[in-house]
């Protein structure tokens, strides 16, 4: 493996997460949510075909599909943030959402964060610039929901795991 966790990564749990990790996690979430949505649509179409015997293409009904995807994305993000403060992508990258004071995120905050997330996109992505510029790495939706994103990855444990797998050094 090219880069084991280094001492610089140690003790990062609870630190504000950076832009790259958040971006990758978000991309992973979009991929995962679209994948699940597509699979669910295909499954639903197959079930309708089995029951009625008619070939139904759900994706061709664009307005319906748009409404479904918006609802699905809302459920995907809001539910996971409310449940444990992290989505699948965030869990993969080892980050999570908490309240600004460090407490676990409340369901209300999860809903506000999900509803205001598109605002960060609508302003030509300027809502995200705070992740790079602000000292607490707040995006617009973070500010509105009073949340922050922190590292939850235990780099120290990871480093110990990595060390444990290394070959013992022969005595000189």
């Amino acid at each position: 493996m090219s880069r084991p966790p280094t001492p610089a990564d140690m003790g990062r749990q609870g630190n504000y997460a950076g832009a790259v990790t958040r971006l990758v996690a978000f991309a992973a979430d979009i991929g995962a949510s679209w994948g699940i949505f597509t699979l669910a649509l295909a499954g639903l179409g197959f079930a309708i075909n089995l029951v009625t015997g008619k070939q139904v293409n759900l994706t061709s009904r664009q307005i319906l599909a748009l409404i479904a995807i918006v609802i699905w994305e809302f459920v995907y993000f809001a539910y996971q943030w409310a449940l444990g403060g992290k989505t699948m992508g965030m869990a993969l990258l080892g980050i999570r959402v908490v309240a600004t004071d460090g407490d676990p995120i409340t369901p209300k905050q999860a809903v506000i964060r999900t509803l205001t997330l598109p605002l960060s996109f609508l302003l030509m992505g300027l809502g995200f610039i705070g992740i790079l510029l602000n000292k607490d790495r707040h995006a617009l939706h973070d500010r509105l929901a009073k949340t922050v994103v922190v590292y939850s990855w235990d780099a120290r444990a990871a480093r110990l795991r990595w060390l444990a797998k290394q070959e013992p050094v022969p005595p000189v």
Partner: protein
Amino acid sequence: MSPLPGANRMEQLVESIAERVVNLVLDAIDINAIVGQVDVDGLIDRVDVQKIIDRVDVDEIVSRVDVEKIIERVDVDEIVSRVDVEKLIQRVDIDSLVQQTELGTIIAHSTSGIASEALDVVRAQGVGLDDFTARWVNRILRRSSAEWPKGPEKLLMAPPAPVPPLAAEASP
């Protein structure tokens, strides 16, 4: 002492005669022949070995034994060379062994170890890129982030205990 004069000498004479007689008789006896006539098995059958064992203080005997000296006298290589490993393995109940050692769990652990190792590397790369990006943004904006809060106070942990250095890092 005998009251009669010369009685002492008489006693000595009788004793020496008796001694000679006994020696002559013993010489004449074929002990092997006698032992051959004894039914040793029958004799052993009559002995209650358990009672004898019960009367033996094994702890006392063991406490007197110098185990180190005994072990030093044992040629382990010689013993091992005599062992038929193939036969030994055939006698091992592998299924039972697997059940007892939960080999399945060990395999699952090693598989999850590979997955977690891959995750650790991805996360470590992410943290590195986060730092790289933040450093360049600060450089462009000509500001220092040294005094900025690292994260929500509640989540910031005490500094971790020192971790042993990597073998590669330790060597010059």
